[in-house]
């Protein structure tokens, strides 16, 4: 049985369905797999259907991405338990920045960017995906990831430095693990 009456069903189509791409993209980057993302994004969308009556209006994309994120982390805990719990590496904070020249050489090509993003811990990766690919505001990022609004900027700064490091030096991931 669908969980919504016809009127809510239409409302869901109008408010939530336009964000299926965002849901899928977010899941793909959290899970690093298109095939898993298709299953988990679907599960998240069906959950969103179930919870839709509780949606008070407002930012439907942020609301949906929050559900996608929870679904992804639950899935990771169950299916890849070692992966979901990697913490921030504060030591990296002390590393010097990569030079613009080395960065510029490294971002040539989609494979290299994809690989660099995938080597980041998911807590960094999700910030970059939300900000750079999805264009979310700091407020939306805070709502989706439950990071306090005041720390979104510094977290993004660390995530970006980590990405630059992974781009110019694929061995950078060893510094994280």
């Amino acid at each position, binding site marked *: 049985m669908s969980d919504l009456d016809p009127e809510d069903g239409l409302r*869901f189509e109008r408010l939530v*369905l336009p964000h299926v*791409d965002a849901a899928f993209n977010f899941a793909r980057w959290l899970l690093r797999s298109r095939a898993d993302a298709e299953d988990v994004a679907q599960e998240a969308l*069906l959950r969103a259907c179930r919870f839709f009556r509780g949606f008070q209006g407002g930012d439907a994309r942020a609301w949906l991405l929050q559900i996608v994120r929870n679904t992804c982390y639950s899935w990771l805990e169950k299916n890849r338990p070692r992966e979901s719990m990697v913490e921030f590496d504060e030591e990296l904070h002390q590393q010097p920045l990569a030079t613009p020249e080395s960065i510029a050489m490294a971002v040539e090509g989609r494979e290299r960017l994809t690989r660099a993003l995938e080597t980041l811990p998911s807590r960094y990766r999700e910030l970059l995906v939300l*900000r*750079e690919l999805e264009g979310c505001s700091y407020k939306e990022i805070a709502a989706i990831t439950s990071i306090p609004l005041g720390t979104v900027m510094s977290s993004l700064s660390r995530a970006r430095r980590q990405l630059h490091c992974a781009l110019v030096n694929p061995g950078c991931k060893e510094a994280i693990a």
Partner: protein
Amino acid sequence: MSCDLTRSALHGYFDGELSAASNADFKRHLQHCSDCVLELATQEFVRDSLQRAPVYAFAPDSLKQRVRAHLRSGVRTDASPQRLIWQWLAAAAALLVVALLVWRVVPNVHDDDDYQAGLAAGIVDAHVRSLQPGHLTNVDSADQHTVKAWFDGKVDFVFPVRDFTNDGFSLLGGRLDIVQGRTVAVLAYARSGHVVNVFIWSTREPEESARAGARLGYQWVAWQKGNMEFCAVSDAAPAELEQLHRLFAG
């Protein structure tokens, strides 16, 4: 890089998330901090690369259809493994067709003069990036001395900064940018409603005659003078870029 702001306020500025007052403070800071200017250029470059790569993963239609079907009928929507295999095969076949089409239809720019093509692409990309609000200049000034002083210590070559307002090219200011892995100086000019960027970097190549081309609707003219390479880019008419080239040469 040693400026602390490259790790804090710079990101808020870059993301358009600073308050008006902090934004103004950081803009003032940019006038004299080459660490932050360079870091900002790097951030823009990486963001641009991420957005153009493209690494965004769009949802397969099958996912949208399954969710719609769930909404309309309420039937369970789990895809059977067998159906998934067929979907993957269909997707793979479609990709192959697209790949073949691209291979057959898109002219291969790498055949002739790879370096030139890559450089023109890099410069036009940088030009387009610069047209986003707030990205055109690090130092806004029509005064050639102010702009020249700003570049001191930020690039390791010296070049003339000139305003050509009397000839219809008004100096808007300068910035640092990154093209093909190289830090380049850029002078921005206004030409009757069009923005013209002149990219400047040092070269050791023997002097060549001027070259020109077009890409994505933008014109470019490149020339050398002394040990400097110049490349002017704009959506203005080619003749106007040629005029600017002559002004620089004169």
